[in-house]
């Protein structure tokens, strides 16, 4: 067993943290990367069955690596006690000697492995589901290559041992999401959505890199543990700036206000990709980053409360807009924004473990909702408008079960998984964030219940809608292969169980598996007596149950509005036209961006194209050409072809030179 402090000898100051060398975290990265490379190079020539095997196996191996890492981590912790920080596997050092100790290595502490486990676990289920969902697609092998690459990028993001590695993974996640959102590149909207997602999230990368530069300039390292040891030497204003820059990056990736606009459009990708983006990879990167950097936020209260406020407002905003959407996937997109808002709220009120716990439960129920929605969309031949659905309860038992459990978990109804995580976040928000943040969260919970039940009512309740009748007329699922259906059904069934029971790993007073993994990191860099204890704050007994009560009220409200189930009732909420339009358009945030950023940018581009390009650069280039032509015409006159004149010039020149030499001497 080799133990050593993270980073080079320069980091010896941070030797308090013990690391154990272990290659298991590298397996988590290597397997999906290998799968992606194999499929990218040979995928076109492989049969779809082989493609599916390679793609799924790669992620299964990664999951096994994550499980083995966690086992190694737990045994190391049992053997070494408090000082043990995690597993470590150096990949390669780079950076100049004597300069900042920058290196790329892998880190397997509780937080990393927690994320890696979900990324690969939920990723595996989504891969399996995709085998059925994408069967027959001409881009089958490309799809799996990119899906594997996505898992690799996200795994790198969460297991990197330094901010540099996380940024590299971050950028790769951006590229993978671009590829997969634009998977159906023949469609204009998919291409536009891919570019939008890439640009918006890329803007966040800017914040990330700036924050890293700020921190490196003062601490001389970007390796997490060494960095956290040295945060004391950084001026508070700089910490606040770095915290806000990190929040910018997190908000862009995690689709938080006001950078959430790419998320609904990203629904243009295949539905399993949406599930992957929303549940396991991509949008949770911001949660990981802010949770990972908690020692910085600990020292920068302003930035921390900014995190909490962005999270709480996004939670409410996402839930509000979700209530007015008619596209099934857009409802889920805004619900993700809302749920991630809760996670950031948790991080922002110093309840990082609760926020990360909510990531855990959300991964299950959101993946479940998306995959169940995928079943429905698959059955209805691509129909996504909920107003054209209805009456599916009888014909799609599995989708109904999955949707019901997923919705209950998302609403936070006990004993489904979302209840425990949301409860932990809201308790911490009450105790340390104040009543307003807590109130925002509870209002979000009410709206969450409302749109969840609305979704259930519109899809499954009432008489069959037009899309359902059309699908039934065509023979329903008659053209599906049973194997493909099985591949889709198994993950939905597994996720149904996980979404129902996933929360039981952390029931206050009963089980504490989640904190056992997470708390060592979240208490390491916090002074004892600080706001570490998540459940230590007093909360009035009635307040603990208020979120659940709010959810019930919201659910009952939705039942009252939509249970009538006649067609007019479906659109009852849409009655005041301007409100409905604003709702459906996501409260015009997109329009605002178009007005403030996109259109001025296009106008600037047009002006540059006309004035600078045509008027400036073109003119300059043509001017140079004209100058050369004119000069050559003028000089050409010297070459008269008159031999005796040449002779005279030579003679005269010689005479002048002779005179000059003679006179000069």
């Amino acid at each position, binding site marked *: 067993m080799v133990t050593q402090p993270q980073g080079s000898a320069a980091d010896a100051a941070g030797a308090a943290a013990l690391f154990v060398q272990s290659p298991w975290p590298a397996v988590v990265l290597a397997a999906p990367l290998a799968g992606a490379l194999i499929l990218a190079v040979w995928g076109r020539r492989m049969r779809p069955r082989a493609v599916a095997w390679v793609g799924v196996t790669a992620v299964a191996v990664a999951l096994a690596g994550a499980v083995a890492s966690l086992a190694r981590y737990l045994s190391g912790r049992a053997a070494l006690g408090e000082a043990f920080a995690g597993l470590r596997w150096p990949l390669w050092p780079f950076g100049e000697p004597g300069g900042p100790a920058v290196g790329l290595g892998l880190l397997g502490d509780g937080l990393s492995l927690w994320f890696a486990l979900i990324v690969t676990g939920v990723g595996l289920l989504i891969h399996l589901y995709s085998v059925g969902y994408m069967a027959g697609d001409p881009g089958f092998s490309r799809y799996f290559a990119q899906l594997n690459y996505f898992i690799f990028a996200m795994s790198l993001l969460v297991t990197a041992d330094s901010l540099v590695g996380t940024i590299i993974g971050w950028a790769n996640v951006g590229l993978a999401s671009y590829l997969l959102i634009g998977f159906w590149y023949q469609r204009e909207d998919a291409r536009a959505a891919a570019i939008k997602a890439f640009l918006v999230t890329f803007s966040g990368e800017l914040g990330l890199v700036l924050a890293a530069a700020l921190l490196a300039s003062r601490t001389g390292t970007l390796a997490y543990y060494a960095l956290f040891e040295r945060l004391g030497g950084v001026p508070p204003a700089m910490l606040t700036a770095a915290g806000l820059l990190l929040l910018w990056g997190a908000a862009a990736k995690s689709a938080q206000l006001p950078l959430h606009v790419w998320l609904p459009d990203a629904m243009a990708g295949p539905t399993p990709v949406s599930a992957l983006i929303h549940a396991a990879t991509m949008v949770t990167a911001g949660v990981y980053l802010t949770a990972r950097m908690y020692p910085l936020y600990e020292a920068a209260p302003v930035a921390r409360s900014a995190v909490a406020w962005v999270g709480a407002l996004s939670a409410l905003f996402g839930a509000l807009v979700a209530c007015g959407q008619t596209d099934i996937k857009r409802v889920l997109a805004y619900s993700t924004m809302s749920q991630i808002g809760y996670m950031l709220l948790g991080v922002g009120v110093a309840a990082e473990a609760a926020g990360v716990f909510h990531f855990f439960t959300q991964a299950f129920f959101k993946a479940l909702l998306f995959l169940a929605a995928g079943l429905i969309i698959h059955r209805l031949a691509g129909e996504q408008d909920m107003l054209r659905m209805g009456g599916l309860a009888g014909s799609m038992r599995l989708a109904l079960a999955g949707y019901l459990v997923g919705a209950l978990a998302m609403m936070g109804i006990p004993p489904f998984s979302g209840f425990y995580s949301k409860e932990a976040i809201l308790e911490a928000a009450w105790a340390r964030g104040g009543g307003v943040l807590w109130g925002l969260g509870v209002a979000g919970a009410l709206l969450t219940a409302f749109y969840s039940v609305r979704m259930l009512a519109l899809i499954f309740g009432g008489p069959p809608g037009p899309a359902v009748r059309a699908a039934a007329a065509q023979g329903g699922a008659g053209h599906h292969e049973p194997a493909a259906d099985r591949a889709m059904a198994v993950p939905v069934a597994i996720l149904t169980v996980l979404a129902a029971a996933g929360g039981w790993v952390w029931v206050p007073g009963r089980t504490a598996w989640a904190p056992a993994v997470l708390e060592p990191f979240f208490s390491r860099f916090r002074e004892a007596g600080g706001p570490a204890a998540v459940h230590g704050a007093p909360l009035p007994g009635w307040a603990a149950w208020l979120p659940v009560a709010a959810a019930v009220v919201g659910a009952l409200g939705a039942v009252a509005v939509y249970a009538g189930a006649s067609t007019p009732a479906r659109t009852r909420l849409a009655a005041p036209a301007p409100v409905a339009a604003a709702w459906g358009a996501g409260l015009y945030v997109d329009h605002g961006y178009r007005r403030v950023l996109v259109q001025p940018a296009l106008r600037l581009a047009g002006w540059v194209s006309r004035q600078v390009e045509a008027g400036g650069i073109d003119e300059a280039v043509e001017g140079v050409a004209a100058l050369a032509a004119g000069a050559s015409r003028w000089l050409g006159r010297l070459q008269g072809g*008159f*031999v005796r004149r040449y002779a005279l010039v030579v*003679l005269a020149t010689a005479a002048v030179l002779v005179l000059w030499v003679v006179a000069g001497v």
Partner: protein
Amino acid sequence: MTPGATLGAYLAVAALLFAIGAMGVLLRRSPLAMLMSVEIMWGAAGLALVAAARWWLDMSGQVVALLAMMVAAAEVAIGLALVVAIFRPRERVDVDDVRDLAG
């Protein structure tokens, strides 16, 4: 060297020869005459070299003059060949007519 004659006299003759040659090159329109004029200029240079060598009793000037003679012979051979090649297709032999490379 003849007593009384000085270097200046030789150089004066050389300068005169050089001027005659130069005038010939500039004023004659027959390429053959121009070549001959060039030869006169070569001769002028050679005279100056030999005279200077004798004056300072340094034989390298004479060596250079001999060298120049040989180069001049070679030059005449090439020059004549060029003249023949250029003027074979033409009816008149006049350098002013050869202006194919006018800019």
